[in-house]
């Protein structure tokens, strides 16, 4: 135990420190030492004769108390300190340099206003930089078209496997389940009007035009957009991107282009798989709950659904892919020197790309409505 006792004499106060004054045992001492400041008047003798171990934290407490006492005009003497203890207290005293206080928060209302302004400006800068990045990507792509040897084929194939092939199971499963859900909900509602047979059209048109591709894009944004940001981000952290530049290699060509191209190639394929699996899910549900046999289901598909429905859906895929790839790589390249920024930008990348996918989808809807498709 670390303890402190004092006795008031006629002209002075005798303070004796005993036990081990080490950091793990200091908590009770702090309050006691503060009380010491109010004890008696006159000189104060601080006796370390019975002190056990002393570490820098204990030495700091002694130094701090002595300093406070001296400041209030008392004479203080340290007694019976061993050479090491005196040296330690001296060393601690030499390092008594309080660090500057952190800047004040200021007016809370102003703070909120400033925060809003900052966010708006950030959004504007972000949009501008993303447009710039888009331009840079197109320029890089243009170079690659003129000199196809510049496309890193190995890298492209690798990313095709990562974002395309490896995503097939999850995309197929989710689309199948959504097909089932749509058919079930549609059948329940349409039965009220005796129009169950239109469940087929309901499932087919919504899956082909919207849900299949939108769902795929959202899964891919979560799976691959985030992976792009995290990969490129940690490469930036380890100065790998700088090393590429220093070796006269273009990160746009090495990192960004293969990823975006892979997405643009893979997403339409995934969208197709998703559409087919959605239709299959619908067929299963129609068969189970409405007694529409697969043969009849296909017949209804031929009658009610045209190729244009499918094309309207699939044509959006490359645009979604471009958005996801651009944002994923862009946010990854923005990572700066801390693990925390990798996490923040990865989150941002997923949120932004899902948002942009839906915005682009809305524009397509309006466009197709105007065209009457």
């Amino acid at each position: 135990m670390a303890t402190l006792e004092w006795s008031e004499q006629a002209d002075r106060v005798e303070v004796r420190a005993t036990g081990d004054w080490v950091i793990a045992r200091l908590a009770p001492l702090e309050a006691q030492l503060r009380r010491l400041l109010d004890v008696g008047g006159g000189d104060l003798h601080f006796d370390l004769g019975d002190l056990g171990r002393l570490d820098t934290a204990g030495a700091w407490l002694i130094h701090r108390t002595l300093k406070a006492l001296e400041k209030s005009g008392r004479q203080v003497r340290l007694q019976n300190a061993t050479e090491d203890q005196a040296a330690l207290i001296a060393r601690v005293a030499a390092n008594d340099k309080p660090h500057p206080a952190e800047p004040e928060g200021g007016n809370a209302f102003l703070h909120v206003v400033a925060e809003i302004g900052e966010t708006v400006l950030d959004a504007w800068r972000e949009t501008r930089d993303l447009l710039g990045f888009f331009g840079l990507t197109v320029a890089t792509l243009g170079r690659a078209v003129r000199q196809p040897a510049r496309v890193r084929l190995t890298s492209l194939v690798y990313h095709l496997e990562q974002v395309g092939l490896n995503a097939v199971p999850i995309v197929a499963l989710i689309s199948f389940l959504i097909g089932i859900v749509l058919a079930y909900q549609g059948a329940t509602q349409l039965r009220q009007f005796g129009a169950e047979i239109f469940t087929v059209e309901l499932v087919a048109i919504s899956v082909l035009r919207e849900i299949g591709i939108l769902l795929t894009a959202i899964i891919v944004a979560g799976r691959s957009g985030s992976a792009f940001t995290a990969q490129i981000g940690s490469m930036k952290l380890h100065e790998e991107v700088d090393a590429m530049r220093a070796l006269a290699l273009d990160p746009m060509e090495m990192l960004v282009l293969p990823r975006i191209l892979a997405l643009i190639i893979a997403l339409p394929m995934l969208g197709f798989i998703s559409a087919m699996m959605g239709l299959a899910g619908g067929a299963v549900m129609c068969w189970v709950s409405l007694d529409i046999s697969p043969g009849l289901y296909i017949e209804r598909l031929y009658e009610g659904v045209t190729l244009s429905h499918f094309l309207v859906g699939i044509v959006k895929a490359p645009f979604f892919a471009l958005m996801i790839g651009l944002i994923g790589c862009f946010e990854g390249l923005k990572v700066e020197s801390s693990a925390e920024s990798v996490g923040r930008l990865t989150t941002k990348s997923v949120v932004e790309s899902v948002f942009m996918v839906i915005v682009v989808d809305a524009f397509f809807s309006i466009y197709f409505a105007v065209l009457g498709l």
Partner: protein
Amino acid sequence: MSAGDAGRPVISVRGLRTQFGATVIHDGLDLDIFAGEVVGIVGGSGTGKSVLLRTIIGLNRPRAGTIAVFGQQLDELAAAERQMVERRWGVLFQDGALFSSLTVAQNVMLPMREHLDLSEGLMDELAAMKISMVGLQPDACNKYPSELSGGMRKRAGLARALALDPDIVFLDEPTAGLDPIGAAAFDNLILELQRNLGLTVFMVTHDLDSLNAICDRIAVLAEKRVIVTGDMAQMLEHSHPWIRDYFHGPRARARAAELEPKQPDPKQEDS
């Protein structure tokens, strides 16, 4: 350290075998480190100096062998007891390994905050004192690790390693990447702290100046074990080819000439 610990090793490694896949790093490694001494671990690249450090502090699991710290077998301890042991050592990783989302002062305060029951004000003062002690300016306290240079990160890492006033300090190449003046100051700092606090220092290093200036004992890692331990004089006389090359190489000679110009060259070969 209390008097009872003197003469007994604070770290005792016996028959250690570490292995990554099929690659054996250490095999039958024995090492004792006694209270209050500064031990420098040297060895060629890839001989597993850092791995040894990481194994002793429990970041790698050895395949075989025992490691005792303060006389307690680490792998037999319950989690709570283990934590008590861990609080008695501090580790400086090669690049500081500061938490990037905290300021330097918060990094130093983190172990105190988690393990002790001190007032906020006192922790603040102790952190500022430790940061100043390792030779950083007070304005470094509120900076984030990404705003510091490599040498400053190392110092901040040492301040965090010293936060709980440990009995043992593990240093992984503390002077690598520092300028010679900074490295000498770092050596001095470690030596003074070691003297005042009775620290035991386990130091992986390549810095011949550090070895010369502050190490009581040098342990040489080669052939998957500690082939020899001893002081500088014993190293200079040892006949193992690697040790000869290391301590009599051109850099070592240049340093020896600088430090003690009157000492005769201890070898017969021409230079």
